């Protein structure tokens, strides 16, 4: 079969996307309420942050605005996984009911087709909130705004998103082997709440775990160091774009391996 180019995939992506948005729009009330729910979540996260820092001026040398920076950074880097890979949440029920087989018969990349089917617009609110927080803390810390800085932050935001996407893909793919994989996916989802803390607060054992075994420190902490602590960037930070791509590739392979092994339910 002829390999299809990027242009072909992009064109098809927007076609599928348009269908999904149309179907979402037919449930207008649900859409509005879900967006509100997302905004509420972000506001609540922010309020608890604010309350905490009212009583404590800094945490282990990290000031309020620096923590806010980490928070905003993690919100932005979690947007792609929320917007583009939301269909991972339904994978379990598709596999369980046997409907997943329909994706296996398409003449395009299985992973691509499955993920492109759903675009979660709610995530855009989170993106706006994250950008707002980041810009605000950027100003308050007094960081320079040079093209190099912008380039750095964009590269590292992409890196961070790749890692979260990889975690979620791998967690979702477990449903090809285990029945009740919702809890694993939920666990991976909960990681994002821990991503916003500097990994230096943990003891060395957990620093190791959160860096290598469950790489949540890469979602906000390591990438942010480039901006926040430019004189003292560990080698891991520079490696993180490679680690991000690697993780994504591995998770893609796991996902595809599970999907190709899938036999359907016979119905």
């Amino acid at each position: 079969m002829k390999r299809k180019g990027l242009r072909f995939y992009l064109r098809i992506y927007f076609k599928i996307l348009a269908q999904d948005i149309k179907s979402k729009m037919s449930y207008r009330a649900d859409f509005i309420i879900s967006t509100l729910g997302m905004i509420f979540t972000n506001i609540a996260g922010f309020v608890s942050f604010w309350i905490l820092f009212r009583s404590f001026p800094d945490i282990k040398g990290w000031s309020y605005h620096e923590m806010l920076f980490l928070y905003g950074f993690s919100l932005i880097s979690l947007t792609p996984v929320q917007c583009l890979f939301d269909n991972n949440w339904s994978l379990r029920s598709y596999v369980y009911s046997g409907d997943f087989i329909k994706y296996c018969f398409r003449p395009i990349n299985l992973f691509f087709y499955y993920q492109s089917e759903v675009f979660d617009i709610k995530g855009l609110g989170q993106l706006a909130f994250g950008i707002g927080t980041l810009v605000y803390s950027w100003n308050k810390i007094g960081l320079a705004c040079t093209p190099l800085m912008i380039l750095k932050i964009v590269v590292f935001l992409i890196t961070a998103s790749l890692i979260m996407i990889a975690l979620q893909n791998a967690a979702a793919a477990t449903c090809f082997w285990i029945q009740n994989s919702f809890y694993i996916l939920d666990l991976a989802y909960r990681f994002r709440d821990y991503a916003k803390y500097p990994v230096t607060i943990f003891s060395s054992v957990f620093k190791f775990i959160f860096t290598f075994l469950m790489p949540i420190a890469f979602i906000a902490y390591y990438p942010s160091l480039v901006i926040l602590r430019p004189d003292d960037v560990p080698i891991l930070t520079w490696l993180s774009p490679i680690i991000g791509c690697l993780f994504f590739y591995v998770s893609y392979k796991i996902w595809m391996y599970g999907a190709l092994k899938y036999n359907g339910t016979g119905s």
Partner: protein
Amino acid sequence: MKIKKYLTLTRAGIIESLQFRLSMLVMVIGNLLYLIVIYFLWKAIYASADSDVVNGMTFSDTLIYLVLATALFNFMEMYTVWQIGRDIQSGKIVLDLVKPIDYRRYIFWSFSGSFVTNFLFTFLPTFIVVTAVTHGAIHMGLNLLYFVVSVVLAIMINYSIDFIVATICLYTESIWGINMMKQVIVLLLSGATVPLAFFPDTLRNVVDHLPFQAIYNAPLTLLLDGDPDMKDVCITLGTQLAWCVGMFIVSKLFWKCSIKQITVNGG
């Protein structure tokens, strides 16, 4: 009231939740991870503070408070909104409505089995671990009794709130957004994310007049108070009881008015 038919539902619930042993394991792991993050985060926070006691709470107080709040959340969260919401969408609710048993009670008792298992497998271990880690910062005395009474009331208040939210789903047919909003509001305003003692005074005042603080803050405050003043205990429990009755009546009336609204597409 024939208690036997309700206990049958409890039994079925226990058996059902024991079926999903793996998800139980993942839940325990997730919990553990959360506890670790909380522990180090607050340790770092307290290490950066000037004094050992902040807003009248020591490090072990805060740790016990937050850890047990999470344990209580896991144990009380019944996913009622999800369940009822799904039943409304699929139409299964009709079958439950025609059963010769009050719907509100039916749902409550079918979830009661998971109370038992969650209590034994998540709450109790967490409680023991916390007691060990904080070297007996939990006073063992009458406060345990008050705590148990308070938790029972909290479960009923939580259920009433859940039921009200689920009833709203009858009108909106949106589950995700509504549930998200509820969860966020309850967790923040009940003190489960940041102890209420850290809240600024004005906010604290508002929160004290809402039912949410009766869910987590009330039982935990009773538990942490090693030398309870009879008057305070009576006030706390009395407030909880009042909310319990109040929310019960509201949820019952709201359901009664709304059930005529229901539109079910087949089923």
